[in-house]
């Protein structure tokens, strides 16, 4: 399967995502340059974390207007798998490919820590490697990860199983005490109604390479790969 990692000015996790697909997953992968509209032959697209355009104005506010994003949207509309991680999630909400917005962390500080997440829905193309209720460690590193959406939107997403991950304690308890940034309902990652676009603040690529002592994030990429192989076979 061919993977693409969107390369925007300032997206400093592009190489990490590339590494995760190339070295950990062992799949072909290449960069998609932000000025190009022709994405070529790709089966899945990763919008990586970082500080695209220096996070100026709002994280993702400038990046979502880049030429390549028009093509990413079209790719998603045709059912292609897209995952936005951290700044990538922010870009996806700015572009309205996902509902809601990411506000500044409640504590007003950048937060980098190895975060425990509870898997909420494992019947998606991005989470099939997990069991619902699994607790995984996935590092977070963000200043604007406080997920917000209107009450009715949240209600709808919850009812549809669109919340994939919640910030939790190591034993899976979800409460204010386990919420690092003030996100509504401890939401850490969501999926669109069509089930092909995911945004998550935690970095699954950072817990994909077991040399670094963490490996649970690999499941996200393996799930995507298995889904692609199933659809393409």
């Amino acid at each position, binding site marked *: 399967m061919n993977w693409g990692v969107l390369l925007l*000015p300032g997206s400093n996790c592009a190489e*990490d995502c590339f590494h995760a697909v190339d070295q950990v997953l062992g799949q072909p992968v290449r960069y998609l340059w932000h000025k190009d509209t022709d994405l070529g032959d790709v089966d899945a697209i990763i919008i990586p974390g970082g500080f695209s355009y220096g*996070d100026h104005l709002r994280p993702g506010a400038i990046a979502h207007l880049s030429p390549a994003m028009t093509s990413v949207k079209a790719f998603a509309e045709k059912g292609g798998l897209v995952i936005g991680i951290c700044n990538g999630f922010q870009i996806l909400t700015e572009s309205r490919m996902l509902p809601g917005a990411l506000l500044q962390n409640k504590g007003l*500080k*950048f937060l*980098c820590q190895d975060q425990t997440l509870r898997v909420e829905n494992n019947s998606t193309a991005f989470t099939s490697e997990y069991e619902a209720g699994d607790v995984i460690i996935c590092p977070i590193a963000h200043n604007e990860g406080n997920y917000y959406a209107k009450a009715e939107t949240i209600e709808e997403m919850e009812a549809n199983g669109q919340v994939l991950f919640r910030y939790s304690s190591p034993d899976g308890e979800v409460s204010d005490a386990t919420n690092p940034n003030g996100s509504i309902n401890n939401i850490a990652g969501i999926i669109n109604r069509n089930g092909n676009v995911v945004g998550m603040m935690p970095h699954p690529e*950072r817990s994909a390479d077991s*040399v670094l002592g963490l490996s649970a994030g690999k499941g996200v990429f393996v799930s995507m790969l298995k889904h692609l192989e199933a659809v393409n076979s």
Partner: protein
Amino acid sequence: MTEKKAGMEEKLWRKAGLTDSEYALLTKHMGREPNVVELALYAQMWSEHCGYTHTRPLFKHFPTTGPRIVQGPGENAGIVDIDDDEVLTFKLESHNHPSAIAPFQGAATGVGGIIRDILAMGAYPIASLNSLHFGHPGDRGHTRWLISEVVHGIGEYGNCVGVPTVGGELRFADAYKGNPLVNAMCVGYMKKSEIKKAIATGVGNSLMIVGNLTGRDGMGGASFASKDLEEENDDDRGAIQVGDPFMEKLLIEACLEVFQEDYVVGVQDMGAAGILSSSVETASKAGNGVEIDVALVPKREEAMRPEEVMISESQERMLLIVKKGMEEKVNKIFHKWDLHAVVIGHVTDDGMYRVLEDGKTVGEVPVWSLMDAPTYELVGEAPAHLQRTQSFKNSDVDVPDDLNQVLIKLLGSPDICSKEWVYRQYDHRVQMNTVVKPGSDASILRIKGRDKGVGVTMDSNGRYCYLNPRTGSQSVVVEAARNLVVSGAEPIAITDGLNFGNPETPDVYYQLEQAIMGLSEACRALNTPVIGGNASLYNQTPEFGAIYPTPIVGMVGLVKSLDHTTTMEFKAEGDHIILLGTTREELGASEYLDQIHGMVMGDVPELDLEEEAQTQAFILKAIRAGLLSSAHDLGDGGLAVAIAESCIKGELGAHIELDANIRADALLFGESQSRFLLSVTPDKADQLMDMAAEMGVEAATIGKVSTDKKLSIKNNETQLIDRDLALCADAFNTGFDKMMKTDG
């Protein structure tokens, strides 16, 4: 040439920071009086900041060569060999004065500057560290504001530019109340074939400026940084540079792409004294001249004078020496990243440094003379306080009744408590190389595609150096090496940051000289040469006096296999706990004396460099033989604190039984050197003890790891410490947050 001779009758050179004799010397070099532009060139290049006028004569003591040293001092950063045709480059730099005035921007631009030094070597920056010193946070709201802003500035820059901030230290003493220290270090990785140099070879080659526009930022920062803070006034506030990490990120990407091609003969970061310093250094190395037309420099502000353009410290700029004819190709790559590379001058063959404005010469001096800053070797004099502090005897203080309480207090004290409040604001995982995170003795990064890693640490101990500059400075080097060794890394080399007061006073000069001797001796003993560094002098204010003499050491080591990666926390119940080294009745200079008795007194504990080297060699050998479960060095707070830290991090208890015949406080909290705390599974314990005996290293089994979550220490059957781990952990984990929330 220029009508006005700089109003030299007004002794303008004094305002520019030059002495009468320096002025006489430069007119001799020039064979005439300088104009304003020329005077500005000398004033910048001959400042302490650029010319190292007081420190250069002392640098000769440093060992700078060794089998792994590829590049010693003299380039943007030094280089060491880590096998497989791969090298690391690293350096530290101070940003003390800017951080005192505008802590957020001062710290941020400090990070940006040192990253560009690494980039200029041709390397990819893989890690940032920092060493920060402040007054006590509980003391003043202003200090807490400084800490918050400095940490925020470091985080904001490092996080955005995508270089993980993986380690460092944060230390507190009243001596830094008026003059905080912010030293930033960066480590870069590259293949040996990718090394770049700061050299302007090839007559006719172009000087190209890349990155940000030039404004009046940091105007005169180079000489500004060499003055007492007292002389600063509100007008000087415009001297603060503003950082743009997004621009820096683009600069990194674009430069590394350009370096892949054969277009560039030399690269130099624009740091202190901007275009001037970077171009003089590259020309001097090649024995060439250069000419620069200030009209060609892309500017952000209008009506800038030639000397302003030359010395501006606008951030995120680099100087490239580009092969004639390749300029457009270079520009094309920068253009891809929405940047521009602009020709501002050329390499010439006449050895002159020539400044033009719209083609007309406005200043012209010999390159060599700018690099030939006069140096000063003064006569130092031992500071008066040493007589008083060294008269300390252990009997001057009583052993406290409640040693448990002492332990809890030390665990929550500023220098010892967890600094998670700080490093959780730094992205320490980006680039996916971080094997051991901040909060450990040293951080470990893997080298992608290889079974090997790099250990990095930054260390200092101002109090030690204040009480004994020589042994104190030796201790700083060995402490850095201890941190690497217990993490499984073999120390390779250091970069040093010399943070001192005004060297023109005999006691500060004494401290500086002794510190350099001490650093040199320890570096020789441990085979860790000095490959570069930085000096920041004049760190003092009229209100609070001079800082502690604070040499800061950044050390890098090689982890030959990632299997060797070792951490401080206890791993399993029943593991034997082993203490290496000799515990003497030494209370002097300790954290305990400072925190519990309020005394900065005594002498630094005795240090035998040979014994230290042998003990470190043993630990590395034991780690490589796979014998150790954990390893931790004994530092601030001594044995009891080290045991508590290994327990807290491992969430396991320890039962310790000692048989010493010294005071209980010296036994628990004294800081006798060359000691380490190891744990080992029972089946490997004998082999470990045999190895220690063979190598002549003193080792004693002092207890076992337990699951009862209690920390118990007995000496000759007397219970000294008996505390629930939860209490220790709470003090350690919340100490810093509490200090930052103190009112006042």
